């Protein structure tokens, strides 16, 4: 496994570089919006990656609720954290695209508002995990994640079922896309998915190691007073 990680890292770096080249140079320029449309090659794959991560978080949380499995709990934490990073990218790149195209940075449109709510739910999840020291924290976080995941389909389908200002879906929806643009979009999605997998892997290893260290420290703290007590009682009986 130790060898797979650097290979995947090199592959991901190469793929991200190629995807960047495709997005900035090779993709055709959109006629109405011009170059600013190229933001779409980072915005949309980041949103899809965030959705996938939140879905993994949902299944890992369900698994934790059923089996109380530590690995599932770590997977839930990791995917929520990385998912929030990708969702942040979506919320930052969206307004940067909207300013020149719509003339405003933000509007309380259904898709935008639901995405912000989604981000807030998972930030609350991470805050709960970070600052609660209760033994019930993983359980409470898992329940929050299960309810939080309900917002993901709402965000995705909001532009299908409601009239919103957000552009219509170009893949699987009512919109259409140039095949060359679709190719660049999919390459970027693949690149960001590999990147997300790599980051999740590192974060998972870090969390597993941290828990091991914490357990060892707790064990040490438990044993420490006992050994000190034994020494004191021995010296007392000797005197």
């Amino acid at each position: 496994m130790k060898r797979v990680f650097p290979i995947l890292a090199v592959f991901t770096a190469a793929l991200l570089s190629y995807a960047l080249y495709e997005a900035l140079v090779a993709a055709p320029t959109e006629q109405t919006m011009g170059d600013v449309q190229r933001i779409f090659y980072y915005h949309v794959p980041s949103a899809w990656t965030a959705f996938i991560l939140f879905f993994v978080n949902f299944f890992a949380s369900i698994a934790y609720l059923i089996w109380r499995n530590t690995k599932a709990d770590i997977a839930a934490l990791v995917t929520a954290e990385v998912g929030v990073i990708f969702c942040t990218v979506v919320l930052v790149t969206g307004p940067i695209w909207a300013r020149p195209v719509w003339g405003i940075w933000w509007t309380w449109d259904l898709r935008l508002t639901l995405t912000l709510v989604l981000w807030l739910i998972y930030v609350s999840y991470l805050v709960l995990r970070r600052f609660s020291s209760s033994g019930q924290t993983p359980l409470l976080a898992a329940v929050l994640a299960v309810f939080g995941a309900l917002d993901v389909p709402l965000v995705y389908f909001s532009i299908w079922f409601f009239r919103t200002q957000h552009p219509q879906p170009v893949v699987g929806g009512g919109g259409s896309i140039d095949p060359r643009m679709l190719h660049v979009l999919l390459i970027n999605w693949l690149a960001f998915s590999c990147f997300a997998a790599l980051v999740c892997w590192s974060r998972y290893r870090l969390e597993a190691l941290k828990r091991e260290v914490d357990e060892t420290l707790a064990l040490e703290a438990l044993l420490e007073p006992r050994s000190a007590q034994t020494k004191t009682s021995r010296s007392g009986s000797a005197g």
Partner: protein
Amino acid sequence: MNYLYAAYIATWAIHIGYLGTLVRRYSRLRNEIAELKARIEEK
């Protein structure tokens, strides 16, 4: 064109910032492990 570059730079700033926090957490944990090892060896 400025908006395009701003979006791409912002994306990578967010990702690199997050990777930076991971590196910091790794090095903190490595120090903790080294301290723990030293304490165990002392005993």
